[in-house]
């Protein structure tokens, strides 16, 4: 019995999606193999790290985040600039918290104002995520899409209740769309079919599979991404070949283990490093499963993930 390396071949390929325009645009996707399996295929674009910026100052973020973002987080323009210039973010994920009907309930015009300012001040591409209220997100993102025509941003998350509004607007005005479904291969595929049936090009769609944090449902997200990828690559299923985006920062920093101080849990150790690791190890698992864009909060996570990807042979 002698050894021969068990190399697999895949029939499918992940779509390439272009976000942003001109020199500052970023391409994601294009893999012909499972993540970082460079011995049997290509990963032409390394996964990208988007840093989260909110349109209103977050009230209750962990101390570890406040230490590094607190000086800018009441101004999305400065916040975004810092993420780009100092922290090396690949993209900005601007979350429109202020439009939440259960919060400040701001209208589409006010939201647009913020999007425009941020877009005009940072060159790197933008992901615009709504507040999670389906009808309000639809209304606001429609307006944003129209007024920011041609910027090739990512708009989302488009869900069952609002995908028609959001993808129609994204399609008409030259943007990409991220469709979110709750941790299920078939539901992700179904939403992609619905959006492409409306005329949205497959190469402008991202899959948001829903993200659970480390210790809070991560294993479900991990496995569904693996299954999404296998469906795309092994079964060559064109409706599953969209790159994957995961909204991890928010989930990770919600976890108690990421934010409690040593007064409450002395046995948990250094709260700053622990918070960063809670996010970074969660992100690592999403990358190893197959994510192409991960939204994160802490600059140290961005650095660590860069080194990790380099270590994995993808620059």
């Amino acid at each position, binding site marked *: *019995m002698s*050894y021969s390396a068990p190399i697999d071949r895949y029939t499918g390929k992940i779509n390439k999606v272009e976000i942003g325009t001109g020199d500052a645009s970023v391409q994601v996707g294009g893999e012909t193999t499972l993540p970082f399996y460079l011995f049997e295929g290509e990963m032409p674009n390394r996964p990208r790290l988007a840093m989260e910026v909110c349109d209103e100052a977050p009230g209750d973020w962990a101390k570890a985040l406040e230490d590094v973002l607190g000086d800018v987080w009441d101004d999305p323009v400065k916040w975004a600039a810092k993420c780009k210039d100092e922290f090396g973010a690949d993209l900005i994920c601007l979350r429109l918290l202020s439009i939440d009907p259960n919060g400040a309930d701001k209208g589409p015009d006010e939201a647009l104002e913020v999007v425009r300012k941020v877009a005009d001040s940072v060159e790197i591409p933008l992901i615009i995520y709504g507040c999670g209220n389906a009808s309000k997100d639809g209304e606001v993102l429609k307006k944003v899409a129209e007024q920011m025509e041609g910027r090739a941003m990512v708009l989302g998350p488009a869900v069952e209740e609002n995908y028609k509004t959001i993808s129609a607007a994204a399609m008409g005005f030259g943007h990409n769309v991220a469709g979110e479904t709750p941790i299920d291969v078939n539901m992700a595929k179904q939403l992609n079919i619905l959006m492409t049936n409306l005329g949205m090009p497959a190469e402008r769609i991202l899959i948001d599979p829903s993200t659970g944090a480390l210790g809070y449902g991560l294993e479900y997200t*991990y496995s569904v991404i693996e299954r999404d990828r296998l469906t795309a690559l092994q079964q060559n299923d064109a409706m599953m070949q969209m790159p994957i985006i995961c909204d991890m920062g928010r989930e990770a920093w919600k976890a108690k*283990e990421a934010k409690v101080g040593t007064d409450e849990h002395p046995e948990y150790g250094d709260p700053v490093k*622990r918070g960063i690791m809670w996010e970074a*190890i*969660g992100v690592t698992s999403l990358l*190893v499963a197959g994510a192409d864009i991960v939204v994160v909060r802490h600059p*140290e996570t961005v650095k660590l993930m860069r080194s*990790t990807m380099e270590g994995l042979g993808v620059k």
Partner: protein
Amino acid sequence: MALTGLDIYKKLPQTNCGECGVPTCLAFAMKLASGGASLDSCPHVSQEAKDALSEASAPPMREVTIGQGDNALKIGGEQVLFRHEKTFFNPCGFALVIDDSMEAAEVDSRLESLKKMRFERVGYELKTDLAALKCSSGDKSSFAGLVEKVKGSCDLPLVLMSDDPDVMSAALDVCGTGKPLMASATPENCDAMAELAKKHQCPLVVRAGSVEELSGLTDKISKAGVQDLVLDSGSRDLSKTLENLVMMRRSALKKKFRPLGYPTITFPCQETQDEMLEAIHASVYVMKYGGIMVMNNLEPWSALPLFVLRQNIYTDPQRPMQVKEGFYDFASPDESSPVLVTTNFSLTYFIVSSEIESSKRPAHLGIVDSEGLSTLTAWAAGKFTAEKIAAFIKKSGIEDKVKHRKVVIPGYVAQIKGELEEELEGWEVMVGPREASEIPGFLKSWQ
């Protein structure tokens, strides 16, 4: 390669005596081939056939046990490449390095950490599994001294790290019957190491410069009579180690390639100086087929996320763990203590209950059978609805235990408040905080 029923039949006595409980040898062979019987049931099978058959019917990846007693670590025995296919079986182990050239104070603090660093999470204790003792001095009495010291103060199984058979032999003499993991046999020392492993009945790490070379070496060592092997592909960089781990796991499971049908060991401690990156390398191997991760740094802030990741990756993906429906008491609650409800997903239950416990306030916590789903998932799936909660409260007997009529629901399902009040006549429904970590504050202000 797996044998067919017919291959097995050829090796049986073919007398159809029926003592195996099946009327014919052929029927027995078929059962064996499908894994439905054990060869031991046939009293007449020859030794030669036994050897051939047990070899062929052995699981594709051997299970290896390190240490003895309650703290023994079992690794390997894995059956799938992706956890959704079935489950990852024997959780991987973490080892903390203690080097014989470290200062005494450093050794003590590492021993302290092995003892003290324990976390309780969802009903399990999370801890470091092994102490990896490394001989850097090259001196066998110095190393034996370290082994002696560690053995005296820590009851975890050991990994002994030295490529020098003399040093290894001296250390093994100190260990007695503790079954430490010997690391490592190499192409240069394999004969002597195999002898030692046989003599002391210890599992043995085999290291070579490539997966191919490694497979030749394990083949040789197993023929020399040592079967409990652990694979070290020799690479000390993230990308190559990932590749090698994938190659070894696939060879074992998909090709049933015996020489690689063993669990693995990895060395994040030798891949980077950066303590954060070291933990991240280890996390990659938790997901991608690492059996043991040998760490130079394992502090609470890195150990907690790593251990939780291991717990996540090694849970059974098909069956969420559940808690029994009913009311659970905290701090001897009485008729005026608060009543809270949540779902029976064990993760949810443990997170909520540990917060109630830490508040030290008395409380009645009601667990509604929601088929093992988390709060929002259960609500979305119609398993944690106003109707279900109301029915549960009524039949639970809580109405006889408390005088008040107030029930606290999780903040994430605030939307069911109105409906629940309609279903539960006479009760006031209070919306609790969203995150369990805010429960202590909430309970402290409860009257």
